């Protein structure tokens, strides 16, 4: 039994490594994405002038300030003493952001295990503004991780705007957001598109019939066909995480075990989606079309990867609720950037588990109908 499964897995790897088109999708697309990523980061923030308004002046607030200023991202413009000076700094263009510690910051932190930090960033240029904001927020959170304390900084940095609409950009698009988003997209591409094509290819050539007429159970056949893609997805995900961590300094603040577990869960969901597509499509062409236009594009556009879900018209927001990537995006961002534990992302995790069982149930049923 295990030998037979191994045989199918091995055969699938032959298919993968002997087909240039497959290799291109598997490894070319992530590389292209990363090159784009490189461009995205080329307007990276460096030596941004900030002001610090420390109304507490305690051990924690000074250490956080030191940490922020020790990075190459931020340079100190000045220590302030009043809020008015912040506006002044922005208006004169001396500073791009300000870090505000309320009075008794350290004490509150010690006593209540949480405290507020206010980050104000200039969003005249919304992208840079939000990027600076999230970099600052990250530094604060890293400090807290180091201190093993729990805290919420002010809900994602408040922004000072010349226009009201730009005031609040909860998505905080930045390179930090790009890495988790990229993983979501790539896993979907590899798992859903590649598996659906791999399965329909065997239907098209006729070999699937031969496999099904063999003593091997249909579930073993499917398992053997999807395991290679699961492994490759893992390689791809690890590669992107490593690249993010070591080259672009995107952290993984949560636990790796949880991250891996959630990645496996999401892979299972998108694999199930791929199997589902292969029960609908009779040809590789159709499987490709369905994967690309019915699944991949909506995922890109609606999962919050490109456009913030909150800014979408209501019908699209509803659609985004049934896109599995939407939930995984929340999960992976929370783990990587906020150090979330399972309890924080339990709802999203359970939704993914639900989607998985639903898809598998429907696929198995459809597979059986085909064999009536």
């Amino acid at each position, binding site marked *: 039994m295990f*030998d*037979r499964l191994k*045989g*199918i897995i*091995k*055969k699938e790897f*032959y*298919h993968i490594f*002997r*087909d240039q088109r497959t290799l291109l999708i598997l490894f070319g697309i992530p590389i292209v994405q990363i090159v784009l990523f490189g461009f995205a980061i080329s307007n990276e923030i460096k030596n941004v002038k900030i002001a610090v308004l420390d109304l507490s002046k305690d051990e924690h607030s000074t250490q956080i300030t030191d940490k922020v200023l020790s990075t190459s991202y931020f340079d100190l413009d000045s220590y302030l003493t009043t809020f008015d000076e912040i506006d002044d700094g922005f208006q004169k263009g001396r500073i791009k952001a300000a870090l505000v510690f309320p009075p008794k910051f350290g004490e509150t932190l010690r006593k209540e295990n949480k405290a507020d930090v206010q980050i104000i960033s200039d969003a005249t240029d919304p992208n840079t503004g939000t990027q600076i904001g999230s970099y600052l927020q990250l530094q604060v959170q890293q400090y807290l991780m180091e201190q093993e304390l729990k805290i919420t900084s002010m809900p994602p940095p408040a922004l000072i705007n010349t226009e009201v609409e730009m005031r609040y950009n909860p998505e905080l698009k930045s390179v930090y957001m790009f890495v988790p988003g990229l993983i979501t997209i790539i896993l979907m591409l590899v798992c859903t598109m590649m598996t659906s094509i791999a399965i329909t290819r065997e239907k098209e*050539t*006729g*070999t699937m*019939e*031969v*496999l*099904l*007429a*063999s*003593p*091997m*159970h249909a579930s073993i056949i499917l398992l053997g066909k999807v395991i290679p893609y699961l492994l490759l997805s893992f390689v791809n995900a690890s590669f992107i995480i490593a690249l993010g961590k070591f080259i672009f300094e995107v952290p993984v603040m949560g636990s790796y075990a949880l991250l891996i577990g959630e990645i496996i869960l999401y892979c299972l969901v998108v694999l199930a989606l791929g199997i589902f597509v292969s029960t609908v499509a009779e040809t590789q062409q159709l499987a490709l079309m369905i994967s690309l236009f019915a699944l991949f594009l909506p995922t890109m556009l609606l999962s919050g990867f490109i456009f913030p879900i909150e800014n979408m018209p209501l019908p699209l927001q509803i659609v985004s609720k049934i896109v599995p990537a939407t939930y995984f995006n929340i999960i992976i961002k929370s783990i990587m950037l906020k150090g979330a534990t399972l309890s924080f992302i339990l709802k999203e995790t359970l939704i993914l588990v639900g989607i998985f069982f639903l898809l598998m149930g429907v696929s198995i049923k459809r597979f059986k109908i085909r*064999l*009536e």
Partner: protein
Amino acid sequence: MDSEKIIETTKLTKAFGDFKAVNEISFDVKKGEIFGFLGANGAGKSTAMKMLTGLLSPTSGEATVAGFDVFTQQEKIKKNIGYMSQKFSLYDDLSLLENIKFFGGIYGLSKEQLNERGNTMIERLGLSDVRNKLLKEVPLGWKQKIAFSVATLHQPKIVFLDEPTGGVDPITRRQFWEMIYEAADNGTTVFVTTHYMDEAEYCNRISMMVDGRIAGYGSPKELKSDFNSENMDEVFVKIARGENYKLQ
């Protein structure tokens, strides 16, 4: 010849919606015989074969294959048969040897068996120099012979061949039938579909399908005399015209 029935069907039917692709067919195949399933395209040959190989569940009727019921014991049937689909049954992007190992492996052959039978097969087919070549570089006629050998590598009791000689030149077809005879001599029952009427002569017994029904059934000799014909082509033309035939 041993007259033990290895396949037996009674009013076996497959309906797709209202359309009956296979309509109440009853026949039997004896152990060790070459049984031909003839008919024009769309007659229902493949559908009938898929029911017998456990790929499709019948709508009604009864059938046993190698003593097992096609409704309830499909998994057991699969252990006793080999199958060559109407489309191509091997992997083009795998080498000859890799194909042999893969298909032998899914039928549970051990490494030793695979090596031994694989080598014998390659030598018998005279394909030693292409053993490591990808199959897409091998001509179609050879591929069909390879596919047949692979389908019988695990020495099944019955081998099902769905139009194995479709699109193949006459010389290769002859060679292919020699291989079928060899398998039958070794005790394998061969169930083969074809729309080439001349191939009917090579079978011990045949069944002719028209629109999902069996319109002629018996040995080529019996059929020729029943229909008062010189050859099977003529028999087929007469059957297709709907000439009366004393049904079984």
